[in-house]
């Protein structure tokens, strides 16, 4: 779906505000891929991700009357996603251990390269799950097509430099967590 121009975005928001259900459905259709991908990558549980993504659109619906249009609609939606993801993770600590998975992998003695890649991807997901929520969100957003550093910075209300630093630190932690597999 092509990105909306500022005027088209304003028109869509106005239609939604006027109670046009078709317009809100259009908004959901337009942003659902990005919202779901961002949440699913951060939460890493599809059913929870769907529930949370629907909750985001409910918050968007409730918040539209108060949306002043100072930021782009997409940035405002990212901000809601970021809040939802961070609230979801507050107080929860990742429980998956890479070491447990590693020993299980060795025990099966897998030599096949394809399976090795799959295993590495699985380890990557588990390593990401061990990152602090802020880092996880930044990693999730940065590697989604169409999301710029500026969007992340605005959504998280952080300076651009801080976002870049957080991203580099997140990747540094990932590299350390995956050190053995990458050797």
């Amino acid at each position, binding site marked *: 779906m092509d990105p909306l121009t500022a005027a088209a975005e304003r028109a869509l928001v106005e239609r939604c505000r006027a109670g046009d*259900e078709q317009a809100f459905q259009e908004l959901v259709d337009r942003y659902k891929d990005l919202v779901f991908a961002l949440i699913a990558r951060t939460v890493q549980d599809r059913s929870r991700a*769907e529930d949370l*993504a629907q909750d985001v*659109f409910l918050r968007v619906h409730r918040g539209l009357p108060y949306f002043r249009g100072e930021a782009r609609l997409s940035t405002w939606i990212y901000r809601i996603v970021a809040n939802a993801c961070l609230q979801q993770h507050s107080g929860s600590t990742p429980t998956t251990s890479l070491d447990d998975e590693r020993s299980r992998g060795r025990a099966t003695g897998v030599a096949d390269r394809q399976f090795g890649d799959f295993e590495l991807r699985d380890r990557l997901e588990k390593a990401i799950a061990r990152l602090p929520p802020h880092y996880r969100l930044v990693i999730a957003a940065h*590697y989604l097509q169409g999301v710029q550093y500026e969007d992340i910075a605005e959504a998280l209300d952080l300076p651009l430099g801080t976002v870049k630093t957080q991203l580099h630190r997140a*990747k540094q932690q990932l590299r350390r967590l995956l050190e053995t597999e990458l050797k």
Partner: protein
Amino acid sequence: MYCDEALDAVEAVAAGDLAPDGRLADHFATCPNCSGALKQARAVEQMLRERPVPSPPPQFTARAMTRVRRARWRSDQVLDIGFNVAIAAVVVAIVIGVWIVMRRSGLGVVGVDAADMVARGLVVLAQRVGPSLPLYGAATALLATALGLWWWAERDTSSIG
């Protein structure tokens, strides 16, 4: 250059955010530890770029819209209940206000007399109408039947047309 400095820059170099200058490039070329870290950072970068993008389920929009409608219905219900409670509170306040005014101004006695008069009038009306009640009932039933037949005939004609 120390390894600490080079290791801090590894992720930025791997992502292409930082082009290694002469000193940094020389260090990566001569230090096996840092060049190994750079290789690993590039591998992480590659894996992150190739990470599959999760897609929402096909019924996502419909489910989201159902949730939005349900939430709106609930908030409408709350609004309706609030409005009805407010109306009831106003009516009760008016009744209590009128009662207080009547008590203080002595109109309460007049009010009781008026209520007695209306009650007596209703009793007289019932006594007069009572004997003719079956007749009135039959007339009403006849009228209702006639109106029902007329309505049925009209409905039938319109459905054919």
